[in-house]
Every structure is written in C-alpha cells, then in structure tokens.
C-alpha cells in the first residue's frame, strides 16, 4: 500500500476506523463472499511501481523522435494555440463529458452551444449536434440518417471518399443489409465522375456521399451533384476530413448539402496516434428529428435568465432502442470544447489566413515537386493542402530512404488504390517551413536517382 496512497486518501487509521464500524477485523474479510480458491493468494507478477520522477524520466525516453512529416490522409498536423491546452486542463471542463445535470454544467452546455453555432456558420447548415466520435462514424451515421429520412436502402458512395471512412460505413450498414454502390472517380481529374453518378441514380437511392476535399486532396464540384441527387429524391451528404479547408471553400450548405458529416481534428486537437478526434455533424432544420447525437438548446430558467439544456433527447436516449436514431448517447465533449476555443482564438480572419497559408505552402511544394525528375503531379484539378505525386520508383523503398533522413515523405496510395501503386499522397500544412519543404524535395530527388 505504497505510492497509490496519494490518490486514495485513506490512512491506516481511517481504514481501521471503517473496519471497526462495519465489524470486520481486516480488509480481506470484506472479500469473504468470493470462494477462497478464486481469491488471489500472491501478488501479481509486476515490476515495482515507479516514483513520479522516475516515471516521467522513463516515459520521456519512450517518446518518438521528431520527424518532418508530410503525412495527412485524414489526420492533420496543425498549430494548436497554448490557450487550448491551458483551458481544457481545467477539471471543470474535463470531468463530465455529458451535461446530464444542467444545474452544475451550464459552462459545458454553453460551450457546446457555441460549438454547434460555429459548426453551422462554417458549414452553412441550419443545425449541428454536439459532436460524434470522428469523421468516419459521423459519415456512417449520415448514411443511416438518409435511409431513415427517405425510407430507401441504397447509398451511392464516391470512391474518392476516404477508404477507411468507406469501410466504417460498410460496417454500419451491414447489419441492416443496405447496399453501397460505389461511384468511380475520373482517373485524369481525381474527382467523382458525375456522369456515372447520373447513371447510378434511381428512385431507390437514399443519398449520395461525396467528400470535399476528397481523399486525393481534390476540391469537388458539389452543386451539380447535389442537384442530381435531389432530382432523384435522394439526400446530398458531404463529408470532409480537413476542416480547415472551409476557411476558404464554399460551405456545403450553400452547395445543396442536406447533411454535412466530417472530421474536426484539425481544429485544435492533437494527432495522438489516431484519437480521440471530433465528429462534426450538421443538417437542415427540417431533418432535426432524424439527426443522431446530442443537441444543446437555449432556454430560460425560473428567473427568466438564459440557460442551456440537452434537448430533443427522445430522438436517441430516452426512447425504446428500436425507435432511436443512433443510440450514440454521447459526444466528444472535451474535443468539441477544444475546437470551440481554437476557433474562438482564430476567429473570422484567423481561420481564413490559416487556410490561405495551407493552400500557399502546398502550392509551393507542388511547384518544387514538379521540377524533380521522376516525379509527376497527377491531377490538374484544384487541391487544398494535399496532392498526389506519381514517382518513378518503388514507393516503399523511396519512403525508406526519406525516413533515414527523418522525413516521412508521404502516404503510399497503393494500399487502398491498387491502380495507384506508384503514387504518394503528400500533405503540407502551415507547420511545414519552406526549408523543410526544400529538404523534402531534395531528399526525394536523391531517392529517385
């Protein structure tokens, strides 16, 4: 009973007092109800606990070394203002993820109300929920919602949507035996093939799912596809994995989107080996009763002062399971607060400038890369901060060469797109300096010789 006494405040004296009160002689007596043969008779085979300073030293040594990373593909390295970490370290924010008792969580409720409002402003939609787990599950929930709204069972899903998001959608609709029909992308442009989309649309399609910027970093032209979806009586679902793009791209709400579902990790949430991230979900007012997730609404208290509560809870929690929208009954509360703080710091001008810097740095990298022998920019379509390079060389070998110089040069696409087995997805955010981009290009050139 050594070091963890710091976290459990009872002293030996306290324990003796409590034992005496309940009429037991020793702590083991409290476990008498467990048969002796199942009780642990010796200590677990674990090393000695480390003291706090030793623990810190040990973990400092375990840390990954720093690499210059050009990876993206759904998770983005952006600057996180110190304010975010300082504020969300307050236990008042990180204790209760869900404000069940509005009397003791008005702070969280208001912060989430502000989050929902920012999401609507960003996406051009009318109502946002309090967040979902991540972009993949958010998009999957959007597909389920389209099925509920239209009562149809086929979904058209662009092949330029993030491959892992597509897998998650498959997982979500499998038990329901709905059908996914893939929409191919145009091999020369890297955008969804809207002519094939037209061919595939019929009266049984619940919706069309397009990601913009898509997995190849290409900006999709959403409006014409939304029109086609609507003509067929289906919903337009727009996904995204790089939220910063909407600092300059037109909000999907103005392009005919009925549901917007994507990833908010770029807004002040660290990479952390893949999570926790932030699922963004927004829709039109008329669909709100079919929307999954928590919803914070504005109300007044007994004194007529403004207050906030969870609202429309019978969509998904206080209702029979089969009648619920999603049963998710949760949200990424702390991550939503992080995003709110991040967007509050950046504000109207900052998000725009951040987006411009991402675009500019990526365009610089594209220019430099196009001058490398053995390297070719594949799609001429507009991109944001990610783009595809075709290289003359085995991607694995080339990337190993760069890794030796502490550079993670890009994401090899062959894993998800066998027809693109000589292609790299390269991501350049505001965190890449000009020198880093030049070093990357130089290393790439050497590796391709």
């Amino acid at each position, binding site marked *: 009973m050594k070091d963890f006494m710091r*976290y459990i405040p009872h002293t030996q004296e306290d324990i003796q007092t409590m034992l005496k009160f309940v009429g037991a002689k020793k702590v083991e007596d409290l476990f008498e109800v467990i048969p002796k043969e199942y009780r642990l008779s010796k200590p677990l085979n674990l090393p000695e606990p480390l003291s*706090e300073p030793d623990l*810190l030293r040990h*973990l400092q040594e*375990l*840390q*990954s070394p720093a690499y210059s990373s050009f990876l993206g593909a759904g998770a983005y390295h952006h600057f996180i*203002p110190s*304010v975010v970490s300082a*504020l969300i370290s*307050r*236990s*008042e*924010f*990180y*204790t*209760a*993820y869900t404000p*069940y008792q509005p009397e003791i*969580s*008005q*702070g*969280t409720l*208001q*912060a989430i109300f*502000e989050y929902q*409002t920012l999401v609507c*402003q960003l996406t051009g939609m009318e109502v946002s929920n309090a967040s979902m787990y991540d972009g993949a599950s958010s998009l999957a929930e959007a597909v389920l919602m389209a099925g509920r709204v239209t009562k149809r069972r086929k979904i058209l899903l662009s092949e330029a949507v993030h491959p892992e998001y597509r897998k998650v959608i498959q997982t979500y609709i499998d038990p329901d035996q709905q059908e996914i029909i893939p929409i191919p992308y145009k091999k020369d442009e890297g955008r969804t093939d809207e002519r094939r989309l037209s061919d595939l649309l019929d009266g049984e399609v619940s919706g069309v799912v397009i990601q913009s910027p898509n997995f190849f970093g290409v*900006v999709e*032209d959403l409006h014409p596809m939304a029109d086609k979806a609507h003509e067929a009586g289906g919903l337009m679902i727009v996904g995204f994995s790089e939220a910063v793009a909407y600092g*300059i791209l*037109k*909000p999907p709400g*103005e392009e005919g989107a009925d549901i917007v579902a994507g990833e908010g990790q770029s807004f002040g949430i*660290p*990479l952390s080996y893949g999570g926790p991230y932030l699922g963004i979900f927004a829709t039109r007012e008329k669909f709100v009763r079919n929307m999954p997730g928590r919803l914070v609404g504005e109300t007044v208290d007994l004194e007529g002062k403004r207050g906030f509560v969870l609202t429309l809870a019978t969509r998904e929690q206080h209702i029979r399971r089969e009648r619920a929208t999603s049963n998710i009954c*949760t949200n990424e509360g702390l991550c939503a*607060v992080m995003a*709110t*703080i991040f*967007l*509050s*710091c*950046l*504000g*109207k*001008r*900052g*998000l*725009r*400038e*951040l987006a*411009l*810097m991402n*675009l*500019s740095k990526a*365009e610089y990298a594209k220019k430099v890369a196009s001058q490398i022998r053995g390297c070719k920019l594949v799609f001429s379509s*507009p991109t944001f901060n990610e783009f595809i390079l075709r290289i003359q060389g085995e991607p694995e070998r080339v990337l190993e060469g760069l890794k030796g110089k502490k550079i993670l040069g890009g994401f090899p696409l062959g894993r998800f797109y066998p027809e693109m087995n000589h292609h790299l997805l390269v991501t350049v955010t*505001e965190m890449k*300096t000009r020198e880093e981009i030049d070093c990357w290009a130089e290393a790439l050139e050497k590796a391709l010789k």
Partner: protein
Amino acid sequence: MEKIKDNGLIQDEPLIFEQGGDGRKGYSLPRWDVEEMKPEKFVPPSLLRKELDDFPQLCEVDVVRHFTRLSQWNYGVDSGFYPLGSCTMKYNPKVNEEIARMSGFA
C-alpha cells in the same frame, strides 16, 4: 467528516458571438515564408466562400476569460467528489496529464 460547501459561482456570461469586436485577434500563425497565393488562382471562384461572416473576433485574453468563467459555472472533480455516471472522469493523477501532453506522444 466535514461537509464540503461548494455553492459555486453563477455566471451571466455572454456568448462568444456577443463579445469581442472587429479586428481583434487571438492567434499567431507561423511566419509567411512562401508566397501568399490568391485562392482564385487555383480554385474556381464558384467553389470559394466569401468571408466567415458571423465568426467571432476575440483576442487571447477575451478567450481565456470567457472559457474560464464558463468553467467556473461547472462542478468538476478537482472541486469535490463527482460520483455521477459511470462515464464521468474520476480523479486521475496529474502526472498522467503531463505525460499525455508530451510532444513525443501527442
């Protein structure tokens, strides 16, 4: 055992949209070391948005005070025992927070 008195504060805190003002900024981006590109040069104007109209404009101290006041309106596990719900955070060693934030892990 003495009773923990925690009446907390009742805040009357405006929304972020009701605070700040035009021109206030609370961010700091990396230096512009590449040429600043005009998006119209690369993306068709029909795919670009106008301003982020209703987004707030706050300076750092506005943001810190706003969210600090909001947090004081909550009850947290550092203030006292919080037994509600199986999925609420229980007290965790502060060293865990420090380690999780180390740059080699985060």
